[in-house]
């Protein structure tokens, strides 16, 4: 990272700060940077910034850096940090808000995660339930890796663990309505 003038950065980043605060319900200044969240984070080894550092970036007005970080996309939502934080900071919710804002700006540092989730929700919208076989095929097609988890599909099929055909719920309209109304409310589900 280049040298930055913090007071200017802080001013310029106020709107981003306000946005993730209002969407996550987290008050960034509540965090006193003790690091307990990151010490216990099971995915920290794979992250570029620790969860504590993501908060620090936002506190300092360096939100642009937080938006580019892989961390929010690799958060497994395990709730360990939230359960341990002495300030009760809902970090997983903050991670969601940051990645949603990143996505709105076209920043998607973890394509595979994004594609997987989109494929998942598309199936739910269409059938009312997640369909694992269809999901794997969709996911592999969209990530252009038809071989990867397809390797696991045959054994799953063999063990009768996934069915080749999706099951649609009867009142699918009620589920489609939920998706439509959330979209109308400005939801970020794309």
């Amino acid at each position, binding site marked *: 990272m280049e040298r930055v003038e913090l007071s200017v950065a802080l001013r310029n980043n106020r709107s981003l700060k306000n946005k993730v605060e209002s*969407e996550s319900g987290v008050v960034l200044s509540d965090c006193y940077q003790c690091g307990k969240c990151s010490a216990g984070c*099971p*995915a920290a*080894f*794979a992250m570029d910034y620790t969860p504590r550092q993501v908060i620090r970036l936002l506190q300092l007005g360096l939100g642009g850096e937080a938006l580019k970080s892989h961390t929010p996309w*690799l958060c*497994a*939502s*395990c*709730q*360990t940090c*939230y*359960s341990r934080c002495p300030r009760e900071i809902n970090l997983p*919710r903050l991670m*969601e808000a940051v*990645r*949603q804002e990143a996505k709105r700006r076209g920043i998607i540092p*973890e394509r*595979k*995660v994004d*594609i*997987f*989730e*989109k494929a*998942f*929700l598309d199936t*739910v919208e269409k059938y*009312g*339930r*997640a*369909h*694992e*076989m269809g999901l794997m095929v969709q*996911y592999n097609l969209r990530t252009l890796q038809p071989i*990867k*988890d397809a390797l*696991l599909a045959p*054994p*799953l099929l063999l*063990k*009768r*663990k*996934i*069915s080749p055909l999706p*099951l649609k*719920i*009867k*009142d699918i309209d*009620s*589920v489609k*309505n*939920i*998706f439509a*109304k*959330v979209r109308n*409310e400005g*939801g*970020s*589900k*794309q």
Partner: protein
Amino acid sequence: MKYAYYPGCSLEATAKEYNLSAKLVAKKLGIELWEIPDWSCCGATAAHNRDYLLSLALPARNLAIAEKEGLDVAVPCAACFNRMRTAETAVRESRDMQKRISEILGSEYKATNKTRAFLDVVVNDVGLERIKEQVVKPLKGLKLAAYYGCLLVRPPKLTSFDDPEEPMTMDRLIEALDAEALSWSYKTECCGGSLSTARTDIGVKMIYQILRHARDAGAEGIVTACPLCLLNLDMRQAQAARVHSDQLNLPIFYFTELLGVALGYEPKDLGLDTHFVNPVPLLEANGL
């Protein structure tokens, strides 16, 4: 003892045996389950990563159906349980949210009913004394690691029935069935959840740590209450071992499967023959 029953998508697919065994033990223990008609997906991790409102409305659709029947909802899947608790709590705590969700659903939902983990129902509503009376095949000799993972016990404000760092509900059940519940330090570590699908390289590292710590504590098998945990620990076990140049042979059980065995069901009828790491030899070696 009657509950609405929400199996969730995994229990119709990769976790069929969880569904099967949960229903069998419920029957034996006198738990009446009314499956929510035409239930839909809770949205899982994907929904809450993408849209908060969607992540509340999807589970609420199912909870609202059960509320009309005046029933609490028993949920075997730890992830669904967590999403449903999140939705009901958000609705209960805010009138504004209650109105928004009801509007999105197109029907009134007030969250007067509660979501219960099926594990909680079995251990705390039926009770260990009554379970012990019904055990016909004690699991004597089995050394097991109870693995809770994340969403069954965290965050404690939402899940509320056990301790987030040292939960004991499943351990107490294991002991009640006469098996040994080992003390180990990874019982609430994360298996990567659905991240393990998109980023398997990261997931297998998390999975391996859990498996290794269970084995090093002396476990012959791991017991879970979560389809995602089982899928990761069971289906990806071979890969996790290979990547770490280790050899592992740890059968992973749903607590309902072991409970079913102790209550007298045949392993095959409980779906125990559908796991990737075959648990049947371990059971047979112990005369089960």
